[in-house]
């Protein structure tokens, strides 16, 4: 099916698909079992220049936008959502630097990330601050030219594997919405350590760890934008990267649909292939239609962001909400089509169902997405009067 991609976008798609099939596919079952980090796939992504996908050419990247990022994430996710996340999470960790970094900060951090030599991660969530990001406890106390960070971030993807971390911390709680600031931290900075690696239900080929700050001294030159801009940095970052997670969900759903379709054409019961049964056909049709709709919504949101539009929150939230709910439905139906075999680890669909669940939760729960959409709808209506 044609999606109106440019030649460059088609190249990104071909490269990502080639890496997914040749490098990720042989590893996905083993990495899901062991939880090991997919360094070999990261190496191939670096060779292909895809680690620099969203980074400007002058910093060593290929100058792509949200749509290119979504295309690559979707192709990798079709094979393995966990491996794809290890790629996509670097995009999330890099986005604050891309959006708010000074030229010096960009020169310092982006080239190594573009070259695939270093990974990035985004540190916002805490044990008591998930949907309620404002409730975060990590503080950054000003001390002359430095800020001293104390606190713990939880469930950070690429935690421990990445070298570059964009972290949000409270600089002045009394200022409310302007009370947080964003910092760039580096692995091995004194006072910055990691907690244990989490043992997850799905996306097990990605590393999830706590970030622990104990009197971690950070020079003010590591601050992104200005003091007090922390929540804005976080929200603007998530607006831009939400379609990427939505693309991950689309990919996982497509992968499950592909497997279910293939299986239904092989499996025989009652003397016929189950793909000839209307019940199965209707399931496959609904699955395929939903995946296509989710994909179109993701591409539309990505194109809107890339066009420079300022009003992207609603589309961004919608595509993440719809794509992740679709992924959960489609992967569950895929397991159903596989029947008993679908429940067994030897077949790939149970992993896809486990992988899909997180897409409804992270990057803003789907409940929060509905809040965001409703607020935007009301704002739009109020502006019309």
């Amino acid at each position, binding site marked *: 099916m044609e999606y109106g991609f440019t*030649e*460059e976008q088609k*190249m*990104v798609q*071909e*490269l990502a698909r*080639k*890496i997914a099939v040749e490098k990720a596919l042989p590893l996905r079952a083993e990495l899901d079992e062991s939880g090991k980090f997919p360094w070999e796939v990261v190496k*191939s992504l670096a*060779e*292909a*220049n*895809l680690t620099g996908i969203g980074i400007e050419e002058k910093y060593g990247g*290929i100058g792509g936008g949200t749509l290119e990022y979504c295309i690559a994430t979707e192709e990798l996710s079709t094979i393995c959502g966990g491996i794809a996340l290890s790629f996509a999470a670097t995009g999330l960790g890099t986005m604050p630097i891309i959006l708010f970094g000074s030229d010096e900060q960009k020169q310092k951090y982006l080239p190594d990330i573009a070259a695939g030599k270093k990974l990035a991660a985004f540190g916002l969530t805490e044990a008591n601050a998930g949907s309620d990001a404002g409730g975060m406890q990590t503080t950054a106390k000003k001390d002359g030219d430095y800020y001293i960070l104390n606190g713990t971030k939880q469930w950070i993807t690429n935690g421990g594997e990445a070298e570059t971390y964009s972290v949000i911390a409270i600089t002045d709680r009394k200022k409310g919405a302007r009370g947080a600031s964003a910092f760039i931290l580096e692995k091995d900075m004194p006072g910055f350590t990691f907690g244990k690696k989490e043992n997850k239900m799905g996306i097990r080929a990605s590393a999830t760890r706590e970030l622990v700050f104990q009197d971690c001294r950070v020079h003010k030159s590591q601050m992104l934008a200005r003091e007090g801009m922390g929540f804005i940095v976080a929200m603007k970052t998530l607006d831009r990267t939400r379609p990427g997670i939505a693309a991950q969900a689309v990919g996982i759903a497509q992968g499950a649909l592909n497997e279910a379709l293939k299986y239904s054409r092989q499996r025989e019961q009652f003397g016929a292939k189950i793909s000839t049964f209307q019940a199965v056909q209707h399931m496959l049709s609904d699955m395929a239609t939903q995946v296509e709709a989710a994909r179109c919504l993701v591409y539309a949101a990505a194109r809107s962001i890339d066009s420079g539009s300022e009003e992207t929150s609603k589309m961004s939230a919608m595509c993440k909400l719809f794509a992740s709910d679709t992924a959960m439905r489609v992967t569950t139906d895929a397991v159903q089509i596989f029947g008993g075999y679908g429940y067994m680890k030897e077949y790939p669909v149970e992993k896809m169902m486990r992988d899909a669940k997180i897409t409804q939760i992270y990057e803003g729960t789907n409940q929060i997405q509905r809040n965001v959409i409703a607020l935007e709808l009301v704002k739009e209506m109020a502006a019309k009067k």
Partner: protein
Amino acid sequence: MNIVVCIKQVPGTTQVKINPETNTLIREGVESIINPFDENAIEAALALRDKHGGKVTVITMGPPQAANALKDTIALGVDEAILLSDRAFAGSDTWATSYTLASAIKKIGAFDLVICGKQAIDGDTAQVGPGISEFLNIPQVTFAVGVEINSGVMKVNRLLEDTNEIVEVKLPALITVVKQMNTPRMPSFKGKIKAKGAVIPTWGAKDINAEDKCIGQKGSPTSVVKIFTPPPKGGGEMLQGSADEVVDALVKKLRDRKVC
């Protein structure tokens, strides 16, 4: 170092059909790929260039669409790619193909090393690499799984059936490589952009000073009579008895079948 790599575009599947009239593969509608062993050859060349500096030129003899395979090699990072295409090359067997490729290499000029894949997965003869070296009058070392080059001398680790062999040879020389040699790198986005704008020169028989009688069907001492899938082997017969009895029985059977 100046390295020339010879590649072939082959059907991307083992499920090919054979045209019963011409005894050749039906290529229409079948996706074409770079012969897998040639991907190892390209990677070997690029790795040597990355280490020693120099230039990698890839050539292929084929129909006009083989230029797409050459563009894929530009995306991998080769410096130059040349297509040898001419109606006069049609119907070439491995002898004529070796002659044609060698003539093109002579036209390219001075070189240190020619690298070929062990064999093409459609023809499976493994003859063209050795054929080229003979026409160029340079030494050949086949089934390379590793190479080291120092001051114009190359050490080649050959992978034989049950052993390895290290052969030392002075450059210029030709090697054929096996898949255990390396893991081919991924094409890069920047490489693909370069490939998109690349102009692939096409050389015909005249451009490479090829003699008419040495190319194409005229230059082919062999021709394909028939391509067929052999019938499946039967079960075989187990001989019983002592070693002496079994040997006697076996020799009798071989004599009866006029094998010896």
